[in-house]
């Protein structure tokens, strides 16, 4: 009943809007802009005589007026802004990635009046900049461009999981769920248990852009399909592998004082730390983890003792803590701790303590994210820093790390089995994987939030709303307001996150440097488990991680001798280490066979 009323109201506002036919600014309410869309469409089509529009088999953008002049234009006219924001003309956007983003707009504007119910969780930042998702400016623009109306169902803050599970349990599902991987057991379980639509067969017909984009690359294809070959979700897919975001960071002044170059090997790192200690850095290496290993394998990686599961050089699933050179690694760390090269309280310090140590004069080297340290070191304390690659054992060896997102990023959306209009739901989701969708999701509206540079890549200009919010909100909040920060779309984080592209910051450069210069082939891809496997994996995983955490931290702290590792390995084997690895191997085999 409620839906009907909402739908009716929307229809009424639409009609009024069309009759009024008001010329409006880009910020105008949806009704006016919708009218504009139609007007502009007819104009665009008219100028090209018998152009594609209406017939629907060819992309509309390609036949429309050429707007390439907007590239590099810093002062577009009102009319141009209108044209960009309200039509499907995408000629001004460049092909900036290695794969061309599809632009099949034949489905838009949608052929009939439809309102879809979309379940999407809010978060504290998003709700502070946009209390009601139905008013989100990007979604409003998407509604206009696609001609598909949305009605958001938003769970209470902090109650997302509970409300999601209640919704699933109640059996009353909306049309689309964004963040569909909340389903216990993941997308595959959601499809198998009858909550989510199996989209495999309709993909090419209803979602031509998504189909083309996910098939544009082997990694994209593999990470967006279940082991059984079912496409159950619409995944956020990045145009590239996102940068590694964690590694070794060194204070520039420590390099200056010691006169040493950035260390490349474990031995060089050791000598550097000793030199730092002599220069008065009392606890030179902030060894940042409660159990002595970092997920990107900063020091342990040199010994092949990766943090957790990885794919070894033979393509087999392997468990880091059980590797051959583990004792060597532990012995090294134990002696470093004894020499006072690590921060004394590394095993117990919480985040605030670690950051307090980092900015103190005791610390020379951090293991952390350059984005975090940009804030704590550079912005707050004016400490410059440089990045080191993960050290290796012998000079010249390829540095390696285990972070890779396999181009899968953002959220997963699913069309539910109770969807009233599957075709429309698919069409709405599909729009995110068009060129225009990439622009709108990542960069918001044209003219007031972003402009287009010479290469046809959108950017946030200094006078734009992203840096001049009328409510004075910080950029870290605004990335949720003027664009979609976390959605099922082509997530262009490197170019469209102003926190990364911020002027003067070199944290993006560091991440780029790490990603380009370290080999990430050992990273375990996002495999999936069957529900039975998942239960066993969870059980064994908890036992093994408890064991590893305890033994490793005690050995490094010197509370246990290095030989205690043998006892650890024997215990791990007795508790099902091999079964655990076999579970991952099976999942990896299925993944590779996708």
């Amino acid at each position, binding site marked *: 009943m409620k839906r009907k009323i909402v739908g009716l109201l929307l229809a009424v506002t639409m009609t009024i809007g069309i009759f009024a036919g008001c010329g409006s600014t880009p910020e105008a309410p949806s009704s006016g802009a919708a009218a504009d869309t139609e007007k502009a469409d007819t104009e665009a089509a008219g100028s090209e005589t018998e152009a594609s529009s209406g017939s629907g088999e060819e992309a509309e953008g390609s036949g429309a007026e050429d707007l390439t002049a907007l590239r590099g234009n810093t002062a577009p006219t009102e009319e141009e802004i209108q044209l960009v924001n309200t039509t499907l003309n995408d000629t001004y956007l460049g092909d900036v990635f290695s794969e061309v983003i599809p632009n099949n707009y034949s489905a838009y504007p949608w052929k009939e009046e439809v309102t879809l119910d979309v379940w999407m969780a809010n978060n504290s930042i998003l709700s502070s900049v946009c209390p009601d998702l139905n008013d989100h400016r990007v979604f409003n623009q998407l509604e206009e461009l696609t001609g598909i109306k949305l009605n958001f169902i938003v769970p209470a803050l902090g109650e997302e999981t509970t409300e999601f599970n209640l919704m699933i349990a109640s059996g009353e599902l909306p049309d689309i769920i964004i963040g569909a991987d909340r389903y216990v057991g993941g997308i595959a379980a959601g499809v198998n248990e009858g909550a989510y639509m199996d989209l495999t067969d309709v993909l090419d017909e209803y979602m031509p852009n998504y189909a083309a984009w996910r098939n544009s690359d082997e990694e994209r294809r593999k990470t967006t399909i279940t082991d059984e070959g079912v496409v159950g979700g619409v995944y956020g897919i990045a145009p590239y592998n996102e940068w590694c975001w964690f590694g070794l960071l060194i204070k520039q002044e420590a390099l200056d004082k010691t006169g040493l170059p950035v260390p490349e090997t474990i031995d060089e790192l050791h000598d550097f730390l000793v030199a730092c200690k002599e220069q008065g850095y009392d606890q030179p290496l902030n060894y940042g983890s409660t159990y002595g290993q970092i997920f990107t394998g900063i020091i342990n990686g040199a010994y092949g003792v990766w943090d957790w599961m990885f794919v070894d050089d033979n393509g087999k699933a392997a468990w880091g803590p059980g590797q051959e050179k583990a004792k060597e690694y532990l012995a090294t760390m134990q002696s470093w701790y004894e020499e006072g090269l690590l921060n*004394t*309280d590394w095993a117990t*310090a919480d985040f605030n303590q670690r950051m307090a140590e980092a900015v103190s004069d005791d610390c020379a080297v951090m293991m952390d994210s350059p984005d975090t340290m940009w804030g704590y070191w550079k912005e707050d304390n004016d400490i410059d820093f440089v990045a080191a690659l993960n050290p290796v054992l012998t000079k010249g060896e390829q540095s390696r790390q285990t972070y890779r997102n396999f181009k899968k990023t953002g959220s997963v959306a699913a069309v539910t089995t109770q969807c009233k209009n599957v075709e429309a739901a698919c069409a709405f989701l599909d729009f995110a994987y068009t060129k225009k969708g990439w622009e709108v999701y990542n960069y918001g509206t044209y003219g007031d939030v972003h402009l287009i540079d010479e290469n046809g890549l959108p950017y946030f200009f200094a006078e734009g709303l992203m840096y001049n919010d009328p409510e004075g909100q910080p950029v870290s909040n605004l990335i949720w307001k003027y664009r979609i920060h976390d959605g099922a779309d082509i997530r262009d984080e490197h170019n469209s996150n102003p926190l990364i592209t911020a002027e003067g910051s070199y944290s993006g450069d560091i991440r780029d440097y790490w990603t380009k210069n370290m080999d990430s082939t050992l990273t375990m891809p996002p495999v999936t488990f069957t529900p039975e496997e998942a239960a066993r994996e*969870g059980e064994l995983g908890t*036992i093994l991680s408890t064991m590893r955490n*305890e033994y490793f931290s005690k050995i490094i702290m010197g509370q246990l001798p290095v030989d205690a590792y043998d006892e650890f390995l024997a215990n791990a084997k007795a508790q099902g280490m091999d079964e655990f690895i076999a579970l991952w191997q099976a999942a990896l085999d299925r993944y590779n066979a996708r």
Partner: protein
Amino acid sequence: MKIKTRQNTGLRQTVDFKTALRKDLKKNSFAYLLLVPVLLWYIVFCYAPMWGVLLAFKDYKPLLGFGDSQWVGLKHFKDFLSGPYFVRTVKNTFMLNIWGLAFGFTSPIILALLLNEIKAMRFKKVVQTITYMPHFISLVVICGMIHIFTQSGGILTQLVDAVTGTEHASLLGYSNMFRPIYTFSGIWQNIGWDSIIYLSAMSSIDPGLYEAAEIDGAGRFRKMWHVTLPQIRPTIIILFIFAVGGLMASGHEKIILLYNPLTYETGDVIASYVYRRGLQEASYSFATAVGLISSLVNFLLLWFTNRVSRKYSEISIF
């Protein structure tokens, strides 16, 4: 059931319970009406959800619903009981609670006894306010403070260094320190708050008893021992029974904020272990099974303590 009532005539007469109830309902209908919300609350929130314990015997999947989820019998119980860390987590849960009983339960009583002796009202109020204070500070902040006090070079660490004569890294990194830190920080948090109930019990003691004791030549300590303590004994025993009933329970928040792999040996309790496991999979059934076991043990302990108490002190909660 028969109830004996005494009629005005003085004759003893047995009246059927139903009749008596009906009569009473009529007579005191408004009093019963007041009872209804309370009863409803218990029915809706405490008794109705009880069938949910059956989840522990199933592999519950929300969409399949309760009926269609697979029945797995005792699988989750076996998983829990056969794990390598079962004994350790149970032991740690018990030990932390025993420490809590030994120190955390007695200290508010002692504080209340001491406060009761203070005659300067102003001073008493100041002490009370100061001891309440930590109760109102968020747990996360409390644990942040504990981290700072116990880090290498922190106030408490220096104190321990001075007493033992050896140098320590962060005290939270030693497994033999976890229980004292956990327990005594708990006392710091709650001593003032918990003493309120005893102070209120003491305020209702008849001053005549103290006068009588004084005449008999009792000093301060004697009065405390022979008058105050026996007078608040029922309060202490009732609270003790409840405390014992919570022996298997453990809040995981404070543990998770304070423990680390170095102190798993003494700090990893059932709740924190289940929490770590839950991070990897949302296993309703497993969590229910563990909760059920804990509740059963708690109930047995409560029942046992209650029985012992009824036998020896004639005070009991049921």
